[in-house]
Structures are given as structure tokens and as C-alpha cells.
């Protein structure tokens, strides 16, 4: 979606302002949000793509104003409600009012190290041959999906080259919306900075994105 998350090339946000000796968390609730989010992911109700879409679907002014752990929290409450685990009424009351759905999937402390150190690889067996080869000129399609997508707006319609072919990976546009993994070939595409940002751009700049096959067309 052309949502508030698609920030590449946007202006007006001011300086980056890195914090000196930044702590890992700025408040105790941030620590809890991190842990609760990972623990709830283990229930298996949603994919990482669905959770990203829940975050980018927050009201745009909120997305830009909230701290990142607050974005996680707000999205988590939406995901838990959507999958029937925690209702708005429960959140308001602060207590469980209905039975859980997937308590049998509750992550135990003993399982934590294994789950975190295994992760969740997205590589899959390809369903057919790759359409593009290293060095090939491609154009990122001018797509404006209403749902989740990982093709940033700044690249759409722009011409670049295939720099690497990575095998097939889970396709987020489908996987975020219950469409299954629908794996596609994944490519690293390199764009000249001037192709993205116009002729006044620093000529030393190049930008790479990782793009699924259906994001691309020959050019």
C-alpha cells in the first residue's frame, strides 16, 4: 500500500539526530512490547508479512508520530483482535473475559532459545526457471497495490539492472493477506541514483532493492 511506511525519498522530517549512548529500551513498557510481540508471533496466527501490514495500516499521522514500539503495540492489539485472542472489551477491562483460541501453542521459556536461534527462513524451492538473469535491464512496474507490498514507491517505473538472483522466497503481497506463501524468484536490482531522483542527484549514488519477480518487467 502507498501508506505512511513508504518513506524513501520523503522530505520534511528534519535531522536523523542519533542519540549518544542510546539505551536498548527507553522505558520498561518497550521491553515488554518486544517480548510480548515475539511470544504472540509464536502462536502462529499470523505471518511476519501480516504483522508488517498491520503496522503500516495504522492511521498515517499516528504511524509518523508514534515511537516504533508503540507502533508494534498498536498493531499487535489489532492482530490479536482479528484472530480472536484479545477483544477491545478485554483491553478496556484489563482482564480476560473469554477463553483463548491457541493456548496450546503458548511458547514456553524452554522453547525460547530454540525458536529465536532458528528464526524463520523465507527461501523456498522455485516453481520454475527464473525470468531474469544477472546483468539484465529491468523496469520496476508501476504498481499501486491496495494491500501489502514491498516495492517502494520511489523505484516504480524506474529502470535498473539485475545484480543478483537469490532463488525463490515467500511472496509478501500474498502471504500478508492469507494468500499463502506463493514463492517467487527474488532479485537484487541496482538503480543509478539519477534514475531514481533526477539529474541533479549525486552521481556516486546507487541504490539497491530486493524485488520479487512480479515487481519487474524487461526494459
Amino acid at each position, binding site marked *: 500500500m502507498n501508506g505512511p*511506511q*513508504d*518513506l*524513501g*525519498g*520523503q522530505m520534511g*522530517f*528534519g535531522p*536523523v*539526530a*542519533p542519540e549518544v549512548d*542510546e539505551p*536498548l529500551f527507553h522505558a520498561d*513498557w518497550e521491553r*515488554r512490547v*518486544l*517480548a*510480548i510481540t515475539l*511470544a*504472540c508471533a509464536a502462536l502462529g496466527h499470523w505471518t511476519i508479512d501480516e504483522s*508488517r501490514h498491520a*503496522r503500516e495500516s495504522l492511521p498515517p499521522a499516528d504511524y*509518523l508520530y508514534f515511537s*516504533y514500539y*508503540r507502533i508494534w*503495540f498498536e498493531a499487535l*492489539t489489532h492482530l490479536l483482535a482479528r484472530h480472536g485472542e*484479545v477483544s477491545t472489551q*478485554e*483491553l478496556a477491562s*484489563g*482482564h480476560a473475559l473469554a477463553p483463548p483460541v491457541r*493456548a496450546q501453542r*503458548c511458547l*514456553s*521459556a524452554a*522453547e*525460547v*532459545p530454540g525458536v*529465536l*536461534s*532458528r*528464526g*524463520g*527462513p523465507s*527461501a523456498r524451492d522455485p516453481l520454475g526457471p527464473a525470468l531474469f538473469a544477472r546483468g539484465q535491464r529491468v523496469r520496476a512496474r508501476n504498481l499501486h497495490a491496495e494491500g501489502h507490498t*514491498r*516495492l*517502494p514507491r520511489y523505484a516504480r517505473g524506474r529502470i535498473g539492472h539485475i545484480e543478483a538472483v*537469490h532463488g525463490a*522466497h515467500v511472496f509478501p503481497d500474498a502471504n500478508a493477506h492469507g494468500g499463502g506463501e506463493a514463492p517467487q524468484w*527474488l532479485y537484487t536490482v541496482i538503480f543509478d*541514483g539519477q534514475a531514481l*531522483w533526477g539529474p541533479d*542527484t*549525486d552521481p*556516486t549514488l*546507487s*541504490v539497491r532493492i*530486493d524485488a520479487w519477480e512480479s515487481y519487474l518487467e524487461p526494459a
Partner: protein
Amino acid sequence: MHDHIETSETEEMTARVRALETILVEKCLVDPASLDAIIETYSEHVGPQNGAAVVARAWSDPAFADWLARDATAAIHSLGFTGRQGEHMQALFNTPDSHNLVVCTLCSCYPWATLGLPPVWYKSPPYRARAVRDPRGVLAEFGVDLPAETRIHVWDSTAELRYLVIPMRPAGTEGWSEGKLATCVSRNAMIGTGLAARP
């Protein structure tokens, strides 16, 4: 005005997060001991020291550096740095005439297994907006001033590949142990917003 909102946000968020945790525990959907274990993992075990060890090994061992260039996932996993947000790795080697910078314009993708949790600025709009268009302006804010002819390679983490920048080894570190070399390697140097520290 924002200060005012932030103070009340802390109170509000503390209460809301506590309420959610209470409900989830009452429903046996999360185990408080697991939450503590997750927090401990990222507070104490998984952090930029992992990435620094990878860089120090690459500086010390040409065969490892070569493996890292060819198959970063396998090379990094061989050091025990596996798992979440490190499943598919690629190493980006800075050279005298090219510099790599990593960003995730669409969310906050970051190589957790080697760098731990991302800093606030990495996840915030100013960095995500500007890194792909004006990386030199961003680098200047981090005190990094590269020669005008240095090629800048920006990597936007739009898929599940995670990028680790291998900074150039500083002069004057000949003969150093891997442990000592790792002390030159900051988190920012492995994102590309910094350089390895000179001794």
C-alpha cells in the same frame, strides 16, 4: 507540547501494555518466564558484539573473508550467530573507493542475529526517508565525511535478506588479536553510518 504528550504517553503505554500482558497471561497465551527469556536474549546475548566478531574474523582470516563474500549466511552461522532476522545474510565490503549503507525504507528490517535490536534512529522517518536519496547528508550527521569520488551503495532491505557492512580495517592494527580488533567495530560501522575506529 510534545514533551507534555510524551510524559502522558509513558504513563498511558505502561498501563496499556501491563493490561495486555495480564490478559495474555490469564489466557495462558504467553508465559511470563518466556517474556523474561526473550528480553534477556536481546539485552545480554544478541547484540553488535556478534557482528564485530564476524568483522574481526574477516579482517584476520582471508579464507573466512572469502567465505563471507560468497556465502555470508553460512559463514556467519558457523560462528553461532543464527536465528531471527539473520536467516539470509549478505556481507557488504567497504573499499577505498566504495562505501555501503543499509536502510529499510519500508519498516525496520535489521540484522538482529549480528547487530541485536536496531537503534531508534534506524527505525525513524528521518533516516528511512533520506538514506536512499541523500546518503552523504545523512553520513555528515554521523560525522562521516567521505571523499567526493567515493561511490555510495545504499541497500534498501525490502525483502528478508539482511545486510552486514564490513568496514575497512583501520591502519595501525597489524598483528592485533580478533578480540582486540572487534573493539574497533561499532554498530554504526556495520550499518554504514560509521567507520571502524582507528587505534
